[in-house]
């Protein structure tokens, strides 16, 4: 069985998704059991992978460029741990919501399974299919409440995401036309020949794939769908979108640029510089737009754009330290942003309003949740004992090392702006309550949050993660470092 672990990790949520549709009672147990099974499977193999062993699985027994391979290396392990860990917490967080039916869990499991599919597959067309499956599930999950705003947000996301994935597929077509194979590692072998004979087509496919993924990860001029989609979705789905789904785009970007295209492609069109400029633009734009928001979840959505800018800067710097910082920030942002969205879900349900002003005096009602919110938002700003600081510091150090001092200034300015908007929220949380009653009355069918086990514990676990990674950053870096080593071993500077 040990040999089959890569496919079992993908299949176990997929199987559970279709079994969930057949039962009514056991939907939650099934989904949690399947995700725990996947986590057990991956943790059996994780130590082996971290010591530099690459697991390759031939689907259907067909090897090489003929069949589809699943490859689990350090980078895929890192991203799949984020997906599975947060996916489990998100399922747990959705339990108290009684009106989430079978379809919700079906879509959630399908999306998680296809995310792992994107991460593990070594076949680039298969990657597209999994990504499209993931996107379909996400569009439906955003529109799950079927209110007007969610439908509009989902439609916007569908249009932008459809265009982005079409670009990606067009880029895949150019790759196939040049190399005649779809396996990532075989494309990489034939890439240097293709680059010398057909430079323009290589650049074209790189630009198309990067643009497509740029839409998916909300790079600055292409971010239009993100604030609506991330803020209007139900809270667990917001956490999934902001914490996990966006990271899949970053994974594909990293995988495609570092594993397929060689360093020559970068330097021909100086894409490092473009990535850094776009990252800085994303950073400043997200920060300044978040400053003017009055809606709590919309503020968090713009804050996602802000933090993604930092990741893009780290990727753009491209040195070892910069990549470690970027990947570590991916992990930190996933943890912190899901904490914030989980807290925001509770706050909005308790206060009955999405406006930040309406949250005054929340500290009196639920001090523990407020504490978690404060910890995570301090991490977002980059205050030392929390994990966001460590990764931001790494990226700043990398920028200084590579000689881009301007970037440090930009990151510091953006951090100051994010301090401004997060402290605005925190101030409201601790202020004295307005005239309305401190403990709201609960309507029919509404979730009671006070002391709710399933709502509180995911938040506590994630907050503990924030503090742990902040106090001992070596834990996260030890997970990230092998992945960066793998990436840089392909690149000839």
């Amino acid at each position, binding site marked *: *069985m040990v*040999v*089959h672990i890569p*496919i079992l990790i993908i*299949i176990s949520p*997929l*199987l559970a998704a*279709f*079994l969930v*549709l*057949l039962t009514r009672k056991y939907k939650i147990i099934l989904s949690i059991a399947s995700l725990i099974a996947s986590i057990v499977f991956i943790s059996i193999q994780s130590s082996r992978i971290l010591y530099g062993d690459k697991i390759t*699985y*031939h*689907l*259907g*027994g*067909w090897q090489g460029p003929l069949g589809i391979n699943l490859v689990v290396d350090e980078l895929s392990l890192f991203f799949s741990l984020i997906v599975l860990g947060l996916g489990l917490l998100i399922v747990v967080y959705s339990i108290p919501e009684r009106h989430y039916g079978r379809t919700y869990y079906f879509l959630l499991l399908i999306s998680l399974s296809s995310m792992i599919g994107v991460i593990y597959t070594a076949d680039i067309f298969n990657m597209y299919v999994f990504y499209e499956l993931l996107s379909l599930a996400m569009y439906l999950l955003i529109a799950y409440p*079927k209110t007007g705003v969610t439908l509009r947000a989902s439609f916007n996301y569908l249009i932008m995401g459809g265009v982005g994935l079409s670009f990606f597929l067009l880029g895949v077509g150019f790759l196939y036309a040049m190399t005649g194979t779809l396996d990532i590692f075989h494309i990489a072998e034939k890439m240097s020949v293709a680059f010398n004979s057909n430079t323009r087509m290589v650049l074209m496919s790189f630009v198309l794939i990067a643009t497509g993924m740029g839409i998916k990860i909300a790079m600055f001029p292409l971010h239009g769908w993100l604030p609506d989609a991330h803020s209007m979705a139900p809270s667990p789905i917001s956490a999934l979108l902001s914490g996990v789904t966006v990271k899949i785009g970053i994974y594909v970007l990293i995988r495609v640029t570092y594993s397929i295209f060689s360093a020559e492609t970068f330097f021909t069109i100086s894409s490092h510089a473009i990535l850094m400029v776009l990252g800085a633009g994303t950073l400043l734009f997200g920060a300044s737009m978040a400053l003017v928001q009055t809606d709590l979840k919309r503020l968090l959505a713009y804050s996602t754009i802000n933090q993604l800018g930092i990741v893009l800067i780290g990727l753009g710097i491209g040195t070892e330290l910069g990549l470690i910082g970027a990947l570590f920030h991916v992990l930190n942002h996933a943890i912190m942003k899901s904490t914030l969205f989980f807290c925001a879900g509770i706050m909005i349900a308790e206060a009955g309003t999405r406006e930040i002003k309406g949250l005054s005096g929340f500290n009196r009602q639920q001090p523990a949740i407020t504490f978690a919110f404060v910890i995570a938002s301090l991490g977002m700003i980059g205050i030392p004992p929390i994990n966001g600081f460590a990764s931001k510091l790494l990226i700043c150090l990398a920028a200084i090392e590579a000689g881009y001092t301007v970037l440090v200034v930009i990151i510091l300015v953006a951090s100051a702006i994010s301090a401004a908007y997060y402290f605005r929220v925190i101030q409201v949380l601790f202020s004295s309550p307005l005239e309305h009653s401190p403990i709201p009355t609960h309507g029919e069918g509404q979730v009671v949050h006070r002391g709710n086990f399933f709502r509180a514990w995911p938040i506590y676990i994630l907050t503990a993660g924030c503090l742990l990674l902040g106090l001992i950053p070596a834990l996260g870096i030890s997970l990230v470092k092998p992945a960066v080593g793998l990436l840089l071993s392909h690149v000839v500077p």
Partner: protein
Amino acid sequence: MGSSKIIRTIAQKLFPFIVLFGFYLISHGHLSPGGGFQGGVVLGTAIILLALSHSIEQTEKKFKSRWLNMLEKLGILTLIFLGFLGIFLGYSFLSNFLPLGNPGQIASGGLMLLLNIAIGIKVAAGVSVIFYALVRYRGEI
């Protein structure tokens, strides 16, 4: 309902042939153009033709949408189960464990025929379920 006797009779007589053609496409998918998806769609259109020529209530009595829903899920679960069978028998996921026959014969594709049948069932049920959903939609939500 509204359709004339000619249409009803022809549709009724045509129904078994369309089903036969669907099964042909499914079972010969590994030898000639066709396959699970295409054959499944043909099977689905057979049900749609019956529903359009006769009344929809009458068709729904014969092909209950509850059973079609169940069949759709069973199709995909069969596919995954066949994949797992490869693991249990000591090969890898979805790999062939049946003997390969002579090329050109119906039993030459190994597992491919079974996979095509599973997909065909799923697609046929799915197409007719979608049709029922569209018919029942009355403009209001």
